[in-house]
Structure formats: C-alpha cells, structure tokens
C-alpha cells in the first residue's frame, strides 16, 4: 500500500491499485445504512402489526428478533449479495474488497460485521474511526480481523480520445524536424500534463484556464522555438492542443 491506496502486484508483474476510502466517507455510508435499517424496520413493523390481532406478545417478540436480525444481518446480506456494497456504500461509491484484491469470502463478510460490536465502542464508532485514521490501509478492527479493505469504487467510463485532438489542421506539422525535436525533448510527465489540461479544459474556470494554458505554452515554447508563422493567430490553448497532437500522434505526416 502506498499512501492511501491498496497496491497489488499480480503474478504477471503487473501493478494495479485501488484508492482507499477514508473514515468520513465510510461514516457517511454508515449513516445512510442506519437510515435504511430504520426504514426497513418501520416497514416490517407494519406487517407485524397484523399479528397483534392474533397475539400482542408474539408480535412484540417477533419485532424484537427482526430488529436484531436486521441490525446484524443487513450488512452481512448486502455485502455478500452486492459484492462488498451496502446501500450506503453504493451511494457514496465505496466497496469492501479482500485485502489481497481477491473476491470476498462469506466468512470475511460475517467476521467484519460481527466485529462492529468492538468498532462501535464507546460511541459513534469511535474505535473503528480511530483505527481507520491511523492504520496504513484505513482499516477498522473488523477489517483487520477479516483482512478486508474498503476502496473508493470509481466507475470510470471507457477512455475516449478528446474530440479536441481530432484536428483537421495543425500548423506545427509544417515543420516536421521541429515536431521531432519537441517529442524528443518532452518527458512523458510533461506530455501527460498537457494532455490532461486539454481533456479537462471544460472543467476549469475561465481565469485559471487562461493562466494554466499560458504557463504550459511558455513551458513548451521554451523547449522548441517554432517560427512565428506557425504560431500566427494561435491562442495558448490552441498551441497546447497542437503540441499534444504532435506528441501523442507519433510522427505521422501533416494532415490537410
């Protein structure tokens, strides 16, 4: 685990990682689950109320047992059926997984839920919260015992190349030797930062956007100086867009 990520190295030598959920998102999920348990109990109570006609004693007895079963069984049933998620965890996009990145076993689900008895001590999951905050894997005691971790479950869409890069004309390509030099002098990190800026430009406010692309343009102009006619009428943002296209589309010839 590096920082707040669970990193797994596969036998093939591939490394993948999951971002770990922190105590606040977990507490939020827990609060939602409490509300769900309360709501489910209220609904069931309406059903049990019919039993009052037969025997008030039986109805109360069943209500006591149902509430207990809901309290203990809700987390176990949901996490087992929904692969590590409860309603609260679904809402806040977190998920319980095995500490080695494998599938959750039923025993792990049961054990981590049984240990809530200690994690919830003395009040408001204080023990579990402190354990989450101080352990490297953000684990409460139940997670430590069951060897589970809670990850932030990001449902990423299939990556698409930004439409911004599908250009018909790129003035920089008129100077292929300068384009080659730009590719040679740029590191993957610099290229990635420029691509990231282009792909996320619509998420940035106007002021910071101008400033960001201005900084990036100055940075890349410092690497390779293109003739003024190549840059004629190009804004900083357009220039970076052309640079990214040059960097990521290899040494293909200029498009017309």
């Amino acid at each position, binding site marked *: 685990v590096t920082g707040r990520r669970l990193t797994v190295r596969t*036998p093939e*030598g*591939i490394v993948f990682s999951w971002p770990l959920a922190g105590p606040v998102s977990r507490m939020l999920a827990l609060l939602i689950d409490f509300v769900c348990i309360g709501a489910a109990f209220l609904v069931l109570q309406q059903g049990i109320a019919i039993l009052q006609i037969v025997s008030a004693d039986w109805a109360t*007895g069943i209500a006591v047992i149902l509430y207990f079963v809901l309290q203990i069984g809700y987390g176990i049933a949901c996490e087992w059926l929904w692969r590590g998620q409860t309603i609260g965890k679904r809402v806040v996009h977190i998920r319980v997984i095995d500490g080695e990145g494998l599938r959750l076993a039923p*025993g792990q689900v049961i054990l981590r839920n*049984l240990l809530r008895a200690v994690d919830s001590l003395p009040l408001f999951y204080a023990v579990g919260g402190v354990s989450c905050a101080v352990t490297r894997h953000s684990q409460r005691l139940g997670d430590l015992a*069951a060897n589970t971790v809670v990850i932030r479950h990001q449902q990423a869409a299939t990556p698409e190349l930004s439409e911004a890069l599908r250009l018909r004309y790129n003035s920089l390509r008129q100077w292929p030797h300068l384009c080659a030099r730009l590719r040679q002098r*740029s590191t*993957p990190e610099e290229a990635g930062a420029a691509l990231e800026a282009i792909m996320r430009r619509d998420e940035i406010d106007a002021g910071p956007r101008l400033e960001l692309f201005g900084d990036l343009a100055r940075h890349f102009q410092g690497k390779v100086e293109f003739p003024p006619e190549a840059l004629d009428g190009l804004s900083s943002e357009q220039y970076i867009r052309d640079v990214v296209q040059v960097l990521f*589309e290899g040494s293909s010839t200029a498009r017309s």
Partner: protein
Amino acid sequence: MIIDIERFFTRNRLHWQELEKLLDRLDAGDKPGYAEARRLHYLYERTSADLARLSTFAAESDAGTYLSGLVGRAYAEIYETRRRKARFSPRRWFFREFPRTFRRHIGEFTLAVALTLAGSGFGAFALAIDIDAKHVLMPFPGLEGDPGERVHREETEPNKNLSGHRSTFSAELMTHNMRVSFFTLALGITWGIGSVLMLFYNGVILGAVAFDYVRAGYTTFLLGWLMPHGVIEIPAILVAGQASFVLAGALFGRGDRRPRRERLRKATPAVVTLAGGTAVMLVWAGIVESFISQYHRPVLPYEAKIAFGAVELLLLVAFLGFSGRKDEPQ
C-alpha cells in the same frame, strides 16, 4: 516512451469493453464455461499488458484508473483460489462442521472454561467474605434481593410478571445473549484481553449467584431455575469465548511463521462457524428459559426441570463430542 494514444485507444478499446461486459456478467452471478474462462484469462492478460504500457505515461489518469479497475476486477476472478462450496447446507454445517470445529479448537474452549471457573470461584469467595458486596458483584435487580423472598414469590405467585409476555421475554433473552456473546467474540481482536475479562466477569456473576442461593439453602431451586437453559446458554457463551481465542491466537501466531494476514485468513472460517453455533445454541436457550426455566414448583417440579437440564447437557456433550466424527480428518 510516449505512446500514440489515439491508436492505442482505438486498437484496444473493443477488448476492454469485452472484458468489462464479461466481468459485469460474472458480477451478476453468471458462471463462465470453459471457453469463456479462457477468454477471460486472455482478456485479463491483454488488458494487464495495456495497463503496463500506460503506466509509463503517468499523467493519463482517466485511462489508467479505468484499466486498473478492469485488471483488478479480473484479477479477483482469476486468482481467487479459496475452495468454494457448491451449496451451503445448514444441516451439514450444523451436524458436521460446527462440532468438528469445536473439537479442533478444544484448547481454546478449555481456556474459556478455566477463566469462567476462576471467575466463579472468585465471585463465590468474594461473597463469602463480604455479603454486602452483592450489589457490586451482581448489579441486577432480579439478583440483588434475598433468595428466600424470591423463591417464596416465584412459588406463590407463579409467573406473575411474565404472564402474556413470554414470547417477548424469550426474544429479548435471545437477542441480549447473542449481543453479549458476539461482543465477547469480537473482543478477541484485543489479543484476547477483552475476552479474558468478559469471561472472568461472567464467571464472577455466576459464582456469586450460585453461592448466594446455596448459602441460603435453595440449591434445588437454583438448579431447577438455571439448568434447563443454563446448560446450553453457558456453553454457548463459552463457545463464543473459544471463537475469540481462536481469533486472538491468529493475532499472536505463536509457533506460526506465516504473516498475520495469512493466519487470520486461515482462522476466519473457524471463528465464523463457532459464532454460528453460538447463535443456534442461544436461540434454543432463549426459548427454554422463557417457557420452562421461569416455571417453578408447583407448576413444574424442580426434579423434572433438573432432569430436563441433565438430559440437555448429555445431548450437548454427545453432540459436540461425537457428531460428525465419521470421515473426520485427523
């Protein structure tokens, strides 16, 4: 190396989407056939290789996150090698796995018994030397009073308080005892320290109550009151203590050089099985306590209640000692 990202996406996107769809189907509970399993493995290896290529290119975080998620999900499907039972059979679990697990960890059970007995001895001794300590040792309204008065009340006004509330009382007993037992089990995570204290304290209460009634000359009442449910309830709590020591044992790992994670992984099925056994025992004890234990003479003769308790105890010993012996791995 900066990769040609457009060509990279175009060439591989279909495979990623195929893997994603396959994983979604597995998530939904579909079982893959042989051909599908091979395809899954191929797609996993191919996507892993794509992730490795993309990793050289640190800042493309969206694609990296997407591929990392896909590889992680596929890895969990492919490398999960723990034996999975085709179908859970409650009968098989109760009559074979539970008693076998109990016997396999008899040492931990013995420790739980020893702690409870030590607590009982302490409770009895403390009450013997200071009878006024009753309200400290057993601070429960039903136990603090004079045993003679209680016996008189129970025998002359049978079940005055429980009339019309037996089912509720039974349910409350079951759930309360399960909470206490599961809490004892969970305290195993404190390297067993909490469990030791809990079992000892339970013993103290038990010893003090027993001493109080025996000293007052109501041994028969005590046995008739406690035995029908106690012979199941007390062992159930001891089994929960046993589970907590299995957990604590995995944390300590004495004589076991495997990493703690591995030890806990191995101990988990036993802890969960013992917890399940505790729950079943406590359901039975709750029913008996409410519907049999609370009836006293003249409604139910003490001899009958004691005999019932003795039969239960014999059956429990036989069950835990011999059930599932056939084909039991040594």
